[in-house]
């Protein structure tokens, strides 16, 4: 979305939709080093912002909505500050890595509103947006627990952190809820960009009998898909599944074997950063900015869900998931958010 073509696209789009009422509200976001096309939460956030812009007749740019790309950890403060200085009414920091930076700038730029995604930051002009990843992970855990035939399930995390632990904890609880016999092997790659290690880890897990792996490891997760697809390609009848993360990762699992279209993506745990971004932007535009508050997006708030692509899940499993989802909504199940 960096290219000139793109910005033209968006501008014509918003011109086309120019029938909507004009607003002088401006909003921007600062990515972490993943960038706006990380196929993960940065991208999702940007999609949300674009949708918000379109809906409200904003143009991409300083007078509408805009993203700032961070190339380095040291760029966070700079970018957030630059955004504030360019008079954006609301500035999102995407990713927990930006927490400190948001806090710091928010304390200085008191006229601007800020929001942090995936973390909690202090400040009256800061809204903290977190997700109940553990809830969604619980649901895919249910899918995994019911799908596994070997009773061995893997989890590949990127770098160990509170956030990634939330995924692991919810997942584990989900599996245990439906399949107490299943073993869960939780591993961390120590890296979000090491596909090679991801593939090695997946090879070790599948090789020792696991048949479902849930990854929360960014680019390292690429390797998990690669290994699964390889195994599936060699033996289309073999049971190998990957559960995607953050967005619907069905495309990542597609392959062709013996002329047959297959897919190793069992399902994905979807985190709707886009919805959260739109939501908070709307509130801010309407003068109801939730400054100082922590907004948790879970299943209830449509912030967390299981992916739309569910072709690989049987109806029974879908029903089970549905029922657990209801129990979570009803508060009958309290999903743990830390590994203990």
């Amino acid at each position, binding site marked *: 979305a960096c290219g000139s073509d793109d910005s033209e696209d968006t501008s014509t789009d918003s011109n086309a939709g120019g029938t909507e009422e004009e607003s002088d509200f401006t909003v921007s976001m600062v990515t972490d080093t993943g960038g706006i096309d990380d196929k993960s939460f940065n991208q999702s956030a940007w999609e949300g912002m674009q949708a918000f812009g379109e809906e409200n007749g904003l143009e991409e740019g300083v007078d509408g909505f805009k993203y700032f790309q*961070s190339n380095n*950890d*040291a760029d966070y403060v700079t970018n957030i500050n630059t955004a504030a200085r360019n008079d954006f009414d609301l500035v999102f920091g995407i990713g927990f890595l930006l927490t*400190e930076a948001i806090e710091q*700038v928010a304390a200085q730029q008191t006229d601007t509103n800020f929001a942090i995604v995936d973390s909690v930051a202090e400040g009256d002009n800061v809204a903290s947006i977190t997700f109940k990843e553990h809830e969604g992970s619980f649901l895919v855990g249910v899918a995994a627990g019911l799908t596994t035939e070997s009773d061995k399930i893997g989890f590949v995390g990127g*770098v160990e952190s509170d956030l990634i632990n939330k995924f692991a904890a919810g997942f584990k609880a989900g599996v245990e809820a439906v399949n107490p016999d299943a073993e869960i092997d939780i591993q961390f790659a120590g890296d979000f*960009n090491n596909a090679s290690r991801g593939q090695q880890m997946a090879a070790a897990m599948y090789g020792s009998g696991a048949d479902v792996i849930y990854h929360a490891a960014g680019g390292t997760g690429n390797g998990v898909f690669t290994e699964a697809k390889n195994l599936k390609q060699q033996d289309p009848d073999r049971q190998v599944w990957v559960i995607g993360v953050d967005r619907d990762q069905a495309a990542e699992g597609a392959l062709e074997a013996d002329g047959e279209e297959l897919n190793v993506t069992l399902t994905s745990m979807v985190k709707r950063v886009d919805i959260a971004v739109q939501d908070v932007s709307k509130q801010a535009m309407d003068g109801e900015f939730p400054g100082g508050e922590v907004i948790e997006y879970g299943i209830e708030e449509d912030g967390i869900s299981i992916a739309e692509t569910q072709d690989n899940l049987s109806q029974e499993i879908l029903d089970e998931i549905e029922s657990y989802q209801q129990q979570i909504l009803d508060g009958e199940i309290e999903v743990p958010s830390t590994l203990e």
Partner: protein
Amino acid sequence: MFNRAQTILIPVISVALGLLIGAVVMIVSGYNPIDGYGALLKGSLGETFYIGETIRQITPYIFAGLAVAFAFRTGLFNIGVEGQLLVGWIASVWVGLAFDLPKIIHLPMAIAAGAIAGALWAFIPGILKARLRVHEVIVTIMMNYIALHLVNYLVRYVISDEQNTTDRVPESASLKSPFFEALTEFSTMHYGIFIALAGAIIYFIILEKTSTGFELRSVGFNQNASEYAGMNVNRNIVLSMVISGAFAGLGGAMEGLGTFGYGFIHGAFSGVGFDGIAVALLGGNVAIGVVLAAALFGILKQGALIMPLESGVPTELVEIVIAIIIFFVASSYIIAYLLQRFKKGAQ
């Protein structure tokens, strides 16, 4: 081989050529180079805020450049600046958090901790090279990865209570400068730049003005002759790595105590250490050169952040420009040759 005028002229020409070719790349891919460079300039030097940010960027580049350059001058190739920087960073933060002391003691202590940690991290490849002749390039590359994993572990399990970041270092150990922040409209500029400039001066003095530097350079050029002259070659190899690592560690301390003020879990390398190789080489491995090269890097990298905002040009353009500048500086022979040709032609 080159005269004085050329040593100044060649980098200038290289930078001009780099920018020129960058402009061509922009035109070819449908951007307006004037807008692009305008944005770059504005985003690095156009406002006091950006100037502050640029200066802050330059700070670690100076140290990383000095670290690589120091090793180079003494015949060693330190690709491990990245790792040494990380351990220096975390060590300085650790000391910053662990003690409660008056600033006059605490800050120097935290900075020293960064230098010492970097030095220790570089001591390992140094001693392996000196004692066992293990190639420092391999060891320093490997030590980078080890540092990354170790530091992440320390942040999470030792310095913090299973958090993603450590606490902020207290004021007594902080390089943050409310004065500069106010002056530059809340940029992250901190006092580190002065330490970096002091570092460059110290670099110059150690290497060019002390008898230790004499030895280090001598060993760098010719180990046999140095041994003949009674110098302890192995000791100098270790010392060189240690000083190089100390510079890198100081770079880390600038980040830990200044730019950030805390330590955090790194998903990947920051790249500053690798950029340091380019800074050092661009600066001809001399102190003033390193400072100037770091300034160029800082300006380009900082400006690159604003470029997409103002002109739509992808930030990567800057990497291309940097690459071309490095290429031409490296090929200074041909530039000097052409210059001579040109001069002759004119006469």
